[in-house]
């Protein structure tokens, strides 16, 4: 499966989790793709932590406004009804539990719902940006990531990298599976039509609780 195909599938599946009226923050990278798969007329309100709600699609070429970018610095638009604010209010929205769902990428996730996505000591230390606040503050945290990295599992018994937040992840969506984080552990809810439960288990280091597993809608 190509990387783009995998990412598109993940984004499509996560779009089903978002409902009209929700305030949603999409992280940089793969999570931003989720917006492409919201149904037309969707009333999901997207928050951009650099300072507004009502994040709209990319502008047409030539119509970029240098004052309107997403948190990754890319040109975007603000939909009618959008609102601008400063960083303190932006993070009051995030930390204060006013964001219903955040979708974030991950380097590692573990059985306790711990998330590591901000640094690899000695190699990559970009900083956490808004990720720690989003993970702690959003009411529901969905991790969007490929199931493995270079063939190695990313869903682990225990994260090895420095954490972004402790016990905050609620749902993990990969190109192979949908996994819910519960107090009992990770529950395998869905597997993709082109894989099997056994294959998902083989590519996951963490223990998966398996009861009723549905086929993932892709």
């Amino acid at each position, binding site marked *: 499966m190509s990387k783009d195909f995998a990412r598109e599938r993940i984004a499509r599946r996560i779009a089903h989790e978002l409902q009209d009226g929700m305030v949603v923050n999409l992280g940089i990278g793969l999570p931003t793709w989720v917006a492409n798969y919201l149904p037309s007329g969707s009333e999901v309100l997207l928050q*951009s*932590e*650099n*300072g*507004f709600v009502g994040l709209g699609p990319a502008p047409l070429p030539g119509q970029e*406004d*240098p*004052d*309107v*970018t997403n*948190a*990754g*610095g890319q040109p975007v638009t*603000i939909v009618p009804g959008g609102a*601008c*604010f*400063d*960083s*303190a209010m*932006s*993070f009051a929205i*995030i*930390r204060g539990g006013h964001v219903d769902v955040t979708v974030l990428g991950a380097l590692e996730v573990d059985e306790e719902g711990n998330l590591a996505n901000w640094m690899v000591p*000695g190699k*990559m*230390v*970009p*900083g*956490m*940006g*808004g*990720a*720690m*606040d989003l993970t*702690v*503050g959003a009411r529901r945290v969905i991790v969007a990531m490929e199931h493995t990295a270079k063939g190695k599992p990313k869903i682990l018994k225990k994260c090895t990298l*420095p*954490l*972004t*937040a*402790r*016990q905050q992840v609620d749902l993990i969506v990969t190109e192979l599976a949908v996994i819910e984080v519960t107090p009992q552990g990770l529950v395998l809810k869905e597997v993709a039509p082109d894989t099997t439960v056994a294959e998902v288990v083989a590519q996951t280091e963490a223990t998966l609780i398996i009861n009723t597993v549905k086929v993932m809608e892709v």
Partner: protein
Amino acid sequence: MSKKLRTPREALAKMDNGATVMIGGFLCVGTPETLIEEVLRKDTKDLTLIGNDTGFPDRGIGRLIVAKRAKKVLASHVGTNPETGRQMHAGETEVVLVPQGTLAEQVRAGGAGLGGVLTPTGVGTIVEEGKQKITVNGREFLLEVALQADYALIKAHKADELGNLVYRRATRNFNPLMAMAAKTVVAEVEEIVPVGELDPDEIITPGLFVTYLVKRGKKDE
């Protein structure tokens, strides 16, 4: 004519080596590039810089990093400027990475007369190292102390002659917070309008916070 209007050179004439400087902007959106240009020109060194990120090597705070003007940087993200990472790993510049919401609140607290804030962000991560943990109603919080600066270099869209400021779109970010937290606040603006032209309801930063105004793109002769 505004009594606060200065050229970049006049506005930053008293900025000394070793100053603590807050700089507004988010990946260079809402960053006062004309003021950064002047800091570069006047060769001010050993600065402690506080900003959301370190921009890009050729834009925003990134230019000060590349020119080695900072001895210490507080930012939430430095990934868009590889030079910051290089200086951090080489031990040339001290880089303190702070969660973005925490940084915003530390700056706000600095301007609001507070000693700091209690945030759940960072609990159980390396961010909590060396910080006081306080339990309120059974939940753990980190005490994050307030930040203040000698200078805040901010960017607004429009000012009136008294220094009342309005911002445009996503350029607001840290600017209004920094405007409250520094001894000298220099606002770089696109336009200065006569007093009375801004509706009091639309003003985001009251002019009482603003020491000097500088027109964006203004060059000293």
